[in-house]
């Protein structure tokens, strides 16, 4: 039992920490945000050069064979920098689906492109009615010879505006919320019948609304079994949750540190406000929330590789609840303890608060995961699943 990083992991951490410290100061980030994509193509290329875009992929496809701990290291640093680039969409979500569902030939064709920064991906799954239910898919895929024809609409597709390829879920059989009958399709956004509308999200990142109207997908662009993609989607969602937990810890840490610094420097009533006990105690509670969240992000990273889907699910649900609650607490307190300055767009803490808030709304909020964990019987002792 240890929490140590290996030498390779330590090197990775040093280089990604340095990247964020050098390239992702708050003022630099503002410049990236102002670019046409809403992020920096130069930064993206740097990620590729550092090997970050190929991190979780097998070496045979130009990757580095990293696991969830490597992802945790990168995402925590990205959380500290509030990274804008489509890393989560491309590498964690899109890349995860390729790793788990694509054939050798498909991986050979796509993963090297991803690793080199030439191919950006997006996961088009959420629909107007689906909320956080991964099985709720109304978009349809109808067989047409060897090809498939897609009809429907997808919402809040993270970085769907800039993606070169979309990974679209569609129902090939069954009723709207059936677990069986979901397929996963690679769609070229310039294909006939695809329209997309890109937009900025609350946290400064980007997303797109997508409509699919008679979109033809060839047989070679189906990922895995067209009737049984849900287990893969769930596995990738669990990996995504572990990654988001790590990113959230990075954002929480900055909010905590920034607030602490402010308490030590801001003078009122003739002294630094950090001398007031009421504020001291509140910042201690922020620290407790941060350490509890960090512990659960580590737990999530270790459990993301768990093969038993139920055990993995329990762990991710628990971690996402902890992250959601700690994040809300730390974020709200960070704003409150800063007072007026915390409310402004020109000061950084509010931007972290916004990203943290949006992380809770991705892949299930704290309440939805609490319900899941309760249904599964919790974490300790013996309880039957309900």
């Amino acid at each position, binding site marked *: 039992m240890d929490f140590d990083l290996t030498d390779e992991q330590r090197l990775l951490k040093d280089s990604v920490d340095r990247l964020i410290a050098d390239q992702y100061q708050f003022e630099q980030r503002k410049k990236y945000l102002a670019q046409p994509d809403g992020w920096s193509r130069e930064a993206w290329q740097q990620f590729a050069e550092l090997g970050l875009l190929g991190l979780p992929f097998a070496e045979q496809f130009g990757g580095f064979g990293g696991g969830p701990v490597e992802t945790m290291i990168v995402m925590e640093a990205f959380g500290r920098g509030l990274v804008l680039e489509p890393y989560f969409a491309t590498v964690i979500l899109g890349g995860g689906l390729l790793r788990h569902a694509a054939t050798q030939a498909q991986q050979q064709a796509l993963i090297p492109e991803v690793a080199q920064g030439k191919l950006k991906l997006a996961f088009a799954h959420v629909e107007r009615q689906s909320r956080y239910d991964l099985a709720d898919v109304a978009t349809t895929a109808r067989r047409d010879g060897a090809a498939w024809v897609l009809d429907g609409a997808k919402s809040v597709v993270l970085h769907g505006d800039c993606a070169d390829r979309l990974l679209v879920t569609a129902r090939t059989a069954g009723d709207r919320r059936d677990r069986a009958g979901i397929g996963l399709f690679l769609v070229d956004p310039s294909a006939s019948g695809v329209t997309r509308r890109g937009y900025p999200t609350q946290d400064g990142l980007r997303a797109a609304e997508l409509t699919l109207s008679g979109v033809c997908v060839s047989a070679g662009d189906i990922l895995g079994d067209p009737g049984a993609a849900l287990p893969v989607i769930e596995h990738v969602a669990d990996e995504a949750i572990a990654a988001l937990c790590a990113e959230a810890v990075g954002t929480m840490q900055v909010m905590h540190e920034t607030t602490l610094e402010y308490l030590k420097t801001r003078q009122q009533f003739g002294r630094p406000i950090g001398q007031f006990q009421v504020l001291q105690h509140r910042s201690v509670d922020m*620290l407790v929330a941060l350490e*509890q969240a960090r512990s659960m992000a580590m737990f999530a990273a270790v459990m993301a590789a768990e093969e038993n889907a139920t055990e993995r699910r329990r762990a991710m649900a628990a971690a996402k609840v902890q992250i959601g609650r700690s994040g809300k607490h730390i974020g709200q307190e960070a704003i409150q303890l800063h007072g007026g300055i915390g409310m402004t767009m020109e000061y950084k803490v509010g931007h972290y608060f916004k990203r943290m808030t949006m992380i809770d709304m991705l892949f299930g909020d704290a309440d939805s995961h609490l319900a899941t*964990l309760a249904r599964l019987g919790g974490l300790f002792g013996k309880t039957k699943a309900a």
Partner: protein
Amino acid sequence: MDLNFTAEELAFREEARHFFRTEIPQSIRDKVAEGERLTKDDMVTSQRTLNARGWATVNWPVAWGGQSWSPVQIYLYQDEMQQANVPTPIGFNVTMVGPVIAQFGNDEQKQQFLPKTANAEIFWCQGFSEPGAGSDLASLRTRAERKGDKYIINGQKIWTTLAQYADWIFCLVRTDPTAKKQEGISFILVDMKTPGITVRPIVTIDGGREVNEVFFDNVEVPAENLVGQENKGWDYAKFLLGNERTGIARVGASKAKIARIKELASLERVGDQPMIDNPRFREKLAAVEIELKALEMTQLRVVADERTREKGRPNPASSILKLKGSQIQQQLTELVMEVVGPYALPYQRDFDGRNEPVIGPDYATEAAPMYFNYRKVSIYGGSNEIQRNIIAKAILGL
């Protein structure tokens, strides 16, 4: 990062689990599981069983009966002991006075006290708090005046847990009233049978008589009972209070309590279903389980880190263990009370044999008393507000 224990550690855990569950009497462990009060005899029996194996004082120097265990072994020992509902070795003996005597006492004191302390042949109590010295402990006023080869002690201690069982009391006393308040304090050992000592019980809100007032009226104590140097007692007290860092989270005990709550909630019914199937109750319980899992992971981080951290520099994460651990223990007592519902009401903890036989299910009798009693865990050993003061200063630099 690897959350798996080594084969040796797993074997040790099995050994500990087997020992705790076979050698410590079931009747005693059942009382702990249900939160019933232990008799002195229960505590002494359990401690002597542990001590016979060398497992009562694992944190002591090896020369005096401690174990040279790794932090992981100590963690597993505590976790298994708590999960098996084994009474924690008498804290006053094992985590408080024993290590102080072993570290700062002279050879005669070590010979005289340590073996008997380990085997609970001496039952200790702690004379620290006073009516005017609670969170501000250093303002204590109980006076010890040197007269020849004796100290004459006058004053009062309060919140003295289990003084009614105690053979000896270790006290902080003021030996130099002219010095700065932390610098005039000494650490002294007093035989409870000495003339001039009066113990008066304090009944707490759970109906129990766990704590007492102890009055000292011209109590004559041989000067050789002073531990270490005169006026250095505050240093020894800080050493004592900083001794236990991880066990204080009581993660194992809370795991056992959750398992018990799940059993009880499947016996109780809400409408036409067992309470454990009630989604709202399941969510409340799951919320506490998540906090506990996070605390367990935090504790493991502290344990793993102790292997490499230099002595005397605690991990910042360790300071949150008591804060969070106490909150979780309290939440769980609330849930037990919620499970037993109206049978929390009958007042059954009593020393006059009232309400015998028990009203309602056996397991309901301690629900409310335990809830009331456990309000103490965020107060004793430095209240949670004092803990926050310490963290703010020592870790956050405020």
